[in-house]
């Protein structure tokens, strides 16, 4: 039996029915920023990477930081939604779609950055022709590609029943009816189909967890496998995965707040969701504080010459403000907010701080290590140029653009999943712990 969209779920379909002029203004604004970034990139293609602030000594910078950051964000969705599904945390239902779609978009944007960073993007196919499995870059290629495929499937499977709902209750143009028919046209809602859908989703949820963990581990290994101070560390795998989940949760929280407000989803996305995810964010915050402490204490206590040089650059060098800002404003302050300000506003502010700090953290992983001299005795300096900032802005805008478009094409809250189990009013304590464990 196929549930019909009751009048009470009309809010979810509203964005698919009607588009306000303000949305078009937003689209135009985002598209303009993306366009500017494309222009900056065309400049770089013509002139070479000399238009960046990179040099022979600091040869990776903002682009590689963005890569790590966006791939980190991508852990939002899939991993968190999968963990909540596997642990049967029922409160997850209204937010899974939002989370899963972040994943796909963040991977697409993030995976673009190593290509933007390439000196010879025209030879990208060499990775397929001559790829060497010994290189961590190949590990990345394989795991990110696998993750993208897996998360696309994991996003699409739960969409299928909703597409049927949308086809029935929204007047569609040619493009959308074609799209929905291709993606889920054969869905009838029979018991058998339902059962197999649940099974496949359950299976994907289990498969995607190790895949997601492997992705950020392998990203960290790009750095960890070198012999450089600040990178060559066994903690890097978990440190990156922790940071990824951390920034991922923060990103979902921000997305939740935006969609709730703009699309009037207050009925579905309740303070409970903010509190539960806020609790998860707090746990990850503490984990990150712990990792950070382990990393820097180990480096400074032994006081090996090169370790000292590196920590000195971090804490007193040109980017010291980022370092202290990240530690105090991005790890300590959010922890206080999450403990003492548990309203939606407090949690969202903490989430924004966390996302900004995690970008700085990525930058601080990439750049100060390269600034640490290996042969000469002076710091190698790096100042990103307008080209690098423009492309970064374009990536953020592009991410928002994709997300906005997605929310116009597909219901941003999974209709059939909340119909199966209406969002519970109050059963937080137990599931919360489950989810954390």
């Amino acid at each position, binding site marked *: 039996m196929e549930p019909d969209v009751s009048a009470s779920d009309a809010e979810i379909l509203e964005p698919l029915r009607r588009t306000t002029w303000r949305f078009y203004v937003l689209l135009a604004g985002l598209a303009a920023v993306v366009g500017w970034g494309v222009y900056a990139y065309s400049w770089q293609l013509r002139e070479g990477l000399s238009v960046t602030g990179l040099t022979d000594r600091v040869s990776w910078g903002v682009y590689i930081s963005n890569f790590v950051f966006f791939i980190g964000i991508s852990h939002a969705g899939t991993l968190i939604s999968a963990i909540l599904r596997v642990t049967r945390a029922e409160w997850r239902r209204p937010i899974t779609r939002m989370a899963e779609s972040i994943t796909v978009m963040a991977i697409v944007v993030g995976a673009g950055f190593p290509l933007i960073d390439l000196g010879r993007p025209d030879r990208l196919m060499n990775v397929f022709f001559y790829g060497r*499995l010994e290189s961590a870059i190949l590990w990345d290629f394989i795991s990110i590609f696998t993750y993208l495929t897996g998360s696309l499937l994991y996003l699409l499977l739960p969409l299928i029943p909703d597409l049927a709902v949308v086809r029935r209750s929204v007047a569609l143009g040619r493009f959308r009816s074609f799209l929905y028919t291709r993606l889920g046209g054969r869905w009838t809602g029979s018991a058998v189909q339902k059962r197999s859908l649940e099974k496949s989703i359950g299976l994907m949820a289990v498969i995607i967890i190790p895949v997601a963990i492997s992705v950020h581990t392998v990203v960290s290994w790009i750095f960890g496998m070198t012999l450089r101070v600040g990178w060559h560390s066994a903690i890097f795998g978990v440190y990156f995965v922790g940071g990824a989940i951390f920034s991922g949760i923060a990103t979902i929280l921000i997305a939740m707040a935006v969609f709730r407000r703009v699309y009037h989803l207050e009925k579905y996305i309740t303070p409970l969701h903010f509190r539960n995810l806020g609790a998860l964010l707090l746990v990850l915050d503490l984990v990150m504080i712990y990792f950070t402490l382990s990393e820097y204490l180990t480096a400074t206590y032994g006081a090996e010459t090169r370790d000292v040089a590196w920590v000195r650059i971090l804490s007193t060098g040109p980017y010291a403000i980022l370092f202290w800002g990240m530690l105090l404003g991005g790890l300590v302050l959010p922890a206080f907010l999450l403990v003492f300000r548990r309203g939606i506003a407090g949690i969202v502010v903490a989430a924004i701080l966390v996302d900004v700090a995690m970008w700085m953290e990525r930058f601080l992983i990439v750049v100060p290590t390269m600034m640490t001299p290996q042969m000469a005795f002076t710091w190698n300096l790096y100042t990103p140029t307008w080209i690098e900032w423009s492309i970064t802005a374009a990536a953020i805008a592009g991410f928002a653009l994709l997300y906005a478009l997605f929310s116009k094409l597909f219901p941003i809250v999974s209709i059939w999943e909340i119909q199966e189990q209406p969002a519970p009013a109050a059963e937080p304590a137990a599931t919360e712990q489950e989810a954390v464990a």
Partner: protein
Amino acid sequence: MEGSRRRFIRLAVVGVGAAGITTLFSSKLIEAVGFSRGDVRAAAPARRQWVMLIDLKKCDGCRKCTEACNTEHFVPPGQEWITVYEVQDEFGFRYFLPRPCMHCENAPCLKVCPVGATFRREDGVVLVDHRRCIGCRYCMAACPYDVRAFNWSEPPHTPEELAHTYRPEAPWPHRMGVVEKCMFCAHRAEEGELPACVRGCPMDAIYFGDLREDAVSNGREVLRLSETLRRDHGFRLKEELGTEPRVWYLPARRD
């Protein structure tokens, strides 16, 4: 209808699996068919194992080696394939340290190259194939000796440089977007010539030779390598990293 359930599950598993496996196999397959690496690698005779010895006692920091190298290889402006560092030890004693590529036996740059553009010949020379390099700069991040340089923009050309036919052993004309470094003057070794920096050094501080023959020469005298290293306390840079450099040094002063 049992079938549709299976199809779902199969779709899921096959989808994820296929993505990984195709990427993996495309590279492995092509390698097996023989497109990869083999061609360039076998080119050099393995009878030799090229090494360098730099006597820091003799070096006066004139940087003539760098000049000779730049001219020989049309090195793009702003780059140095052999850099002369000024070092000050903990007692305030200053000396100069010329640093070419170490041509490590266990080369970190070579390990990380995703496309095999950096490769090692059987005679121990580590080269970069600029026709294959994708410019990811992973090798630059991986090199502990700051050896590698990148062509951030199109290097200026001269007619003489452009007239030459590129090969990894004589890597010019230079081009944008790839990584450059010292190639132990592989093109001169083919002719039985000493490297440009050895010839350019007025102090005769740089020696070049063959590990197998246990002999190195600066063009004026020939030294037995093992004996010299033992007698004069020879060392290599960052020995503790296990990179096994092919460049040895004699300390700046006798203790």
